[in-house]
């Protein structure tokens, strides 16, 4: 037994000396994403997007002549791993910037570490508290949940809906949305008559939607990113609940429409325009960026594009643009991001400022619906024609 311990210690000491020094002239970008585990719907497309973009830029010769070295780490949505990896990336790999984490919980825990380490961190998570209070080095690329909720309520007001049900999953994503819905409902004169939180692994929500039906609601909102999104609308339609169904931007992946087959028709949800890129008018400022991302991603990975991969696209390309503008000095790049205006991303058009480290507003969201099994932009006129 003693011998084993000595061997381990010896191995460790060897490791300490044996690790080679990294090559010199690259720009190291770290990425801490939840590629497996409970946030894999977010992290996996984000990781694939980053890989695709890094390769593309390196093929063209890199930024300012330097190649990008992408260091990807899978946290499995565990905060303790996120913390450990962030410290590693900042102190050992000495990365230029970090993209991620994928979830709000992880982001809040590494915010302080990035600030202390004076390293730019562009999170792919949505919680407002990531950028409010503003941390000098911490930014985020997804839209605020608040705007999604506002978009939904504005639509409900137009439709004359005053009594709704809210169902959400017990994940960080679901929780964030639920809080915004509860906070903003009174401002639009909307009463939440039924409010249920379900487990993210739930495979049947008949009982939940039955309860909603019993509460006599005029519409309901589901806020989650799991398969439950498709299950809840199926169950609702099956028990004869015919009221309008609203989803969160978590619905932004066509696999859920496919999974729900006929039940997804007519579902309304706010989302970035990535999902309806083809139907945008030719002169729409975002069209070129969206079409290119969609075509490249679908060609390379043979799967449908989702708005979550788009958050990683935005984070990475914002960083790239800032480096192209300001060079490879961290402080200058940070200031460049802060002053960036009119950046065309997948989630919308970004306008940063020292007080606004997110850069998106209500216009980032478009109200979409499902028609004929596809995502289309929702228009009141078209709906009335039916």
């Amino acid at each position, binding site marked *: 037994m003693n011998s*084993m311990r000595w061997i381990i210690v010896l191995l460790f000491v060897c490791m300490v000396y044996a690790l080679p020094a990294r090559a010199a002239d690259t720009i190291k970008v770290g990425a801490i994403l939840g590629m*497996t585990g409970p946030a894999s719907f977010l992290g996996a497309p984000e990781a694939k997007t980053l890989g695709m973009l890094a390769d593309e830029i390196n093929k063209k010769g890199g930024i300012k002549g330097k190649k990008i070295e992408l260091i990807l780490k899978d946290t*499995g949505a565990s905060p*303790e791993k996120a913390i*450990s990896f962030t410290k*590693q990336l900042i102190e050992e790999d000495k990365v230029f910037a970090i993209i991620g984490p994928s979830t709000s*919980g992880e982001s809040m825990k590494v915010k*302080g570490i990035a600030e202390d380490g004076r390293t730019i961190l562009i999170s792919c998570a949505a919680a407002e508290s990531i950028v409010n209070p503003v941390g000098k080095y911490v930014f985020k690329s997804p839209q605020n949940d608040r705007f999604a909720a506002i978009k939904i309520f504005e639509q409900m007001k137009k439709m004359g809906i005053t009594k709704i049900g809210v169902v959400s999953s017990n994940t960080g994503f679901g929780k964030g949305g639920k809080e915004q819905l509860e906070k903003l409902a009174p401002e639009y004169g909307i009463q939440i008559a039924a409010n249920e939180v379900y487990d993210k692994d739930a495979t049947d929500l008949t009982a939940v939607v039955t309860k909603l039906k019993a509460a006599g609601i005029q519409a309901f909102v589901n806020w989650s990113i799991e398969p439950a999104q498709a299950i809840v609308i199926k169950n609702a339609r099956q028990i004869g609940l015919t009221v309008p169904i609203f989803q969160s931007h978590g619905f932004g992946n066509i696999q859920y429409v496919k999974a729900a087959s006929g039940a997804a028709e007519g579902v309304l949800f706010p989302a970035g325009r990535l999902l309806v890129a083809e139907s945008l008018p030719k002169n729409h400022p975002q069209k070129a960026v969206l079409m290119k991302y969609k075509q490249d991603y679908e060609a390379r990975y043979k799967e449908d594009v989702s708005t979550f991969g788009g958050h990683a696209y935005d984070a990475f390309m914002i960083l790239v643009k800032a480096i192209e503008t300001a060079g490879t000095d961290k402080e200058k790049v940070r200031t460049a991001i802060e002053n960036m205006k009119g950046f065309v991303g997948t989630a919308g058009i970004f306008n940063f400022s020292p007080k606004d480290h997110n850069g998106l507003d209500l216009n980032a969201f478009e109200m979409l619906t499902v028609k004929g099994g596809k995502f289309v932009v929702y228009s009141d006129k078209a709906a009335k024609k039916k």
Partner: protein
Amino acid sequence: MARSTYKQILLLTVCVIGVQLAATAADKTQYLTQLTMAGYYSMVIIGLSLLMGYTGQISLGHAGFFAIGGYTSAFLTTYNLLPHQDAPIVSLLARTGVLMAGKDLYDADILVVQPWAACIAAVLVTLVVAYVIGRPVLKLKGHYLAMATLGFGTIVYKMVLGTSLVGAADGLSDIPAFQLLPGLSVSGKSSVRIQNYYIAWGLVIVGTTLLLNLIHSRVGRALRAIHGAEDAANAMGVDTASFKLRIFVVSAVYAALGGAFLTHFNGGIGPSEASIMKSVHYVAIVAIGGMANLWGALTMGVALNFLSLRGYFGSHDDSVFGLILVAVMLFAPEGIGSTGAPERIRAWIKRLGAREEPAP
């Protein structure tokens, strides 16, 4: 303290100091971060090794105790008591110096429990839970015991995941540093990294010493009797139920201490610390280290947790531990050290040489 214990502890202390000096000399002090985290996880592992090895009780829910300790400490040190200032309990606590002022995320003033008091509370809560759960659970055997502990772990996980008071899926963050003495505090800041490494490993050394003393005492002999043949032990008048319960509670408290300290080091905690996969990690480590082998478990725990926290296993973290579990249980159920590999290799080499001679 037995002489052999004394020597082993001394050896451990020398290793701990040696590793730190080597890291500083090679300018790789960043490794100490993961070693500190691995140290706190080792608290769970040595407790579990005692439970599984010396009393033969499997626990597939020990991450639950780690989480209870961590979350209690986290909750008490971040929950703002200012709105309840006038409640009698709060003013009593304030007068006894248990509360402290702090600042929340938005720099507003808040009133929270002091970390040292929160830590004590964490240990007490875990003690009570372990005692209450332990009594019925330890009466079970085999599959029933495994499922009961699995059920307990799952309940803790679902509860922290579903309760918004403790942050639900996001967990708790912005946890203040835990000041042990003026100038010595548990926190993740890079300036106090070496300090924290010694705090963590100091805790492990003290914990291991206590456990070793336990093993070499009357209680330890009773435990070995229980593990060997429980009915015989009962017949000899050993109160097996009470011993098993005591060890269960001790291992739970160790896990809770690890959890509370790590939470302050990390500055946050999330539901993932209570997940069943974490419990399986701990069991896999104890299995490969050798179930009644405290040192084996400790060594393998540090090695595997260190590698896992540094991302060596990448996305295959869970499968690595699953493979280890299957491989160890198939080929070396007593742990890697007991396979007698070195002796067998030597014997095999000898046999190679002796093959030339015909059998008598």
